[in-house]
């Protein structure tokens, strides 16, 4: 009896395993499609949504950018260029933008792209029922925050369709970087008929995922990959050289690297930290700078960090060069908060170049100790116990351990500990201000110093430092209302100077995306915001 059961069981196992099979011989097809130019880019974890209004991740954003196009688009230098809008007029106070749409822009089903599509998409992204996380990217539009709160109706919004190919946008304040905002996925057009007929499902199915961008989605195997081919109706079809893009959803860095080394992938966007030293020997390894700053945030209301001198002492005890070169093995040492790459539009230079360095790259132990003594804690005596918190993660852990050593050695203190918490618990603790010093990071939402600096205004939800300064708030307001770029930049530099001199945080490094790109991949563009642009990419073997 037992033997029969056993045999039956085994037979069942065998039959089910073999009969159901999986996928179906796709591997070979993906690896080599008869000489066609197929770019295989590992995307990372499957995006939460590829609906332009609901997409929140950089990876998901790259998919939206492949399949949709905004009024403007970014060039290789991160500057806005014509997209669906072929030209635009801006009034003198930069509050009224009139976009003139090109007449040959088409959706992937051949329908023309009109101003109504933008009007619908923006209304939808702002509508309370859509509950879009990135709705705030549209808050520059007149009455948009009120509409998002449900306090006013859509008629009050500063969006006006003049005619099919003319869109007028009224902003609540002068926003010189509005043209870079229109390159952001949340502001991309969507088709009312498609979205309304298919409700929440439209962005889950390649057939209804109709876009107006250079590519269209043709295949989506959930949690494994997506495949894109050129959109034949794209107005600049000739720009697109690839025959297909396959985006795979491998989340584990070591697995991506294995796939890359085995020749199954052409581009990967992250590599295991402990492999970086080896990979640096290879030309295929590239550190691509991003608009981000990794920093340690003080709670300026909690002792001992209510004393600016203690804060400065802690900041000077950190060796940024060692952390970037020896510990994280990547990144750019941060000497201030605003990341390099952000333009100072008045000077025509990098904002960082004009603003200069506020913190030295190397640690300054003597100066740090002197400040600590001045604050009343000579050699750390009498310093209250300090706990540094961060979220559980290998990278944060090793950086925290290095920082801990630097504080102990360079300040001569012992009563400092590090403590890690699970991500959501950590964020909760940090947002509640229940900490002394915590890991923090900021990735810009658009390419302007404002995306960094307005973080520390008194009411900002991300001002975890619990810091408040009337002067600072006024400078940010001044920059918001300025119609002259010279005045605006001056105010922003002044604002940065205040937070740096007050040392409400310790800038540590600016983020880089550590990528591997096969040498035959040409023209792949990665923007400062981390988005990947495939429209000019090519494979030249």
């Amino acid at each position, binding site marked *: 009896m037992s033997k029969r059961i056993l045999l039956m069981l085994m037979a069942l196992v065998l039959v089910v395993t073999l009969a*159901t099979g999986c996928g179906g011989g796709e591997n070979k097809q993906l690896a080599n499609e008869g000489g066609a130019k197929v770019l295989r880019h590992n995307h990372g974890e499957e995006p939460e949504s590829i609906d332009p209004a609901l997409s929140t991740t950089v990876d998901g954003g790259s998919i939206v950018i492949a399949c949709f196009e905004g009024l403007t688009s970014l060039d290789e230098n991160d500057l806005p260029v014509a997209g669906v809008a072929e030209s635009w007029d801006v009034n003198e106070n930069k509050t009224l933008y009139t976009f003139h749409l090109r007449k040959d822009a088409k959706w992937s089903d051949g329908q023309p792209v009109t101003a109504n599509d933008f009007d619908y998409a923006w209304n939808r992204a702002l509508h*309370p029922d859509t509950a879009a996380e990135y709705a705030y990217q549209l808050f520059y539009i007149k009455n948009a925050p009120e509409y998002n709160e449900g306090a006013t109706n859509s008629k009050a919004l500063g969006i006006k369709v003049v005619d099919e190919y003319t869109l007028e946008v009224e902003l609540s304040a002068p926003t010189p970087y509005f043209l870079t905002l229109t390159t952001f996925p949340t502001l991309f057009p969507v088709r009312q008929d498609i979205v309304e007929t298919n409700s929440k499902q439209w962005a889950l199915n390649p057939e209804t995922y109709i876009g107006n961008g250079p590519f269209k989605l043709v295949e989506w195997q959930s949690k494994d990959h997506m495949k894109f081919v050129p959109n034949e109706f794209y107005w600049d079809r000739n720009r697109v050289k690839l025959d297909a893009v396959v985006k795979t959803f491998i989340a584990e860095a070591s697995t991506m690297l294995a796939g890359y080394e085995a020749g199954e992938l052409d581009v990967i966007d992250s590599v295991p930290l402990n492999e970086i030293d080896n990979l640096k020997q290879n030309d295929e390894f590239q550190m691509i700078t991003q608009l981000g700053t990794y920093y340690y945030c003080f709670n300026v209301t909690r002792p001992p960090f209510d004393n600016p001198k203690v804060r400065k002492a802690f900041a000077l005890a950190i060796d940024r060069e060692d952390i970037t070169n020896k510990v994280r093995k990547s990144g750019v040492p941060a000497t201030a908060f605003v990341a390099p790459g952000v333009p100072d539009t008045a000077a025509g230079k990098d904002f960082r170049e004009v603003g200069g360095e506020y913190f030295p790259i190397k640690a300054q132990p003597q100066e740090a100790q002197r400040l600590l003594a001045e604050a009343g804690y000579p050699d750390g005596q009498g310093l209250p116990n300090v706990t540094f918190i961060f979220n559980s993660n290998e990278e944060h852990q090793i950086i925290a351990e290095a920082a801990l050593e630097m504080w102990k050695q360079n300040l001569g203190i012992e009563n400092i500990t590090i403590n890690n918490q699970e991500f959501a618990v950590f964020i909760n603790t940090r947002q509640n201000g229940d900490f002394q010093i915590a890991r923090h990071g900021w990735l810009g939402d658009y390419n302007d110093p404002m995306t960094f600096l307005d973080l520390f205004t008194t009411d900002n939800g991300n001002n975890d430092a619990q810091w408040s300064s009337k002067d600072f708030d006024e400078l940010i307001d001044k920059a918001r209302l300025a119609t002259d770029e010279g005045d605006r930049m001056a105010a922003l530099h002044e604002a940065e100077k205040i937070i740096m001199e007050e040392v409400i945080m310790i800038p540590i490094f600016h983020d880089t995306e550590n990528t591997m790109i096969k040498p035959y991949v040409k023209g792949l563009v990665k923007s400062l915001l981390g988005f990947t642009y495939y429209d000019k990419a090519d494979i030249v073997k």
Partner: protein
Amino acid sequence: MVSFIKTFYGVQFRMLSYIIKRLATSLVTIWMVVTITFLLMHTIPGGPFTREKALPLAVLKNIEARYNLNDPLWKQYTDYIQNLARGDLGPSFKYQGVTVNQIIAESFPISAQLGLASLFIMLFVGLPAGIISALRQTKWQDHLAMTLATVGVAVPNFVVATLLMYIVGVKLGWLPTARWLSWQSVIMPSIALAGYYTAYVARLTRSSMLEVLQQDYIRTARAKGLPERVVVYKHALKNALIPIITYLGPILAGILTGSFVIEKIFAIPGLGEHFVASIGNRDYTVILGVTVFYATLLVAVNLIVDILYCFIDPRIRLGK
């Protein structure tokens, strides 16, 4: 004849009433699992929309309204139970527009295929290895099998997975390094997943066989002059299987619902990952959905194992 039919139906009836009783208690078990999970999940700080970049308050309010997260907790609970009774596990908070039912329907078959392939290895490698060791006790076959089994138990599956991926996938290029593409994709993950269990099954089979082989009835069978094959497979193995089935039952539920580690390493779009990832994401509906699913499967497998016992061992009677 009549008495035989009576007995037969008596057994059938007893079994049926036993099964009904078990199903009723299972429902209570599952309800308790749901309730405890629901409470625990809402006790931990942070929510599904906790972000590194804090969301503006108005935006957060809209999102909470959309997912009914602004309702009082008891209302969220009763709503969930009502939907659950209808088989509706609700929408995922993380994957926009995707329901938990869809997530399970898409990912469970993949994990189950991988699990069955691993089960296949466990039974076809583990069982024979154990039997051979027992029959050739203290001979080289025994030493070899048991040394391998010790290694199998001791080496963690992620080490096996990484080594396989590096050697077979990258260096030799015989198999795809990762993902779920064709039958070839099943090989490495199923070996990595089965390693520990196979080794354990081999050791369990060996000790169980050794114990049974020393029983009086085996001596009797041999004394009767039965061929060794019949003694081993018909008389010994049948009884030796009981502890193995006891072990495999709950393992089966676990292995069919996928392994977080193996699925992560091989980028397999299975269910296993959701058990862990959903907690980090505070994707409440997914946490509850996969927990209910797993609990149901576990309860079902245990029931099946209990029923199987009475076929294997006539001494075991259900419902008494």
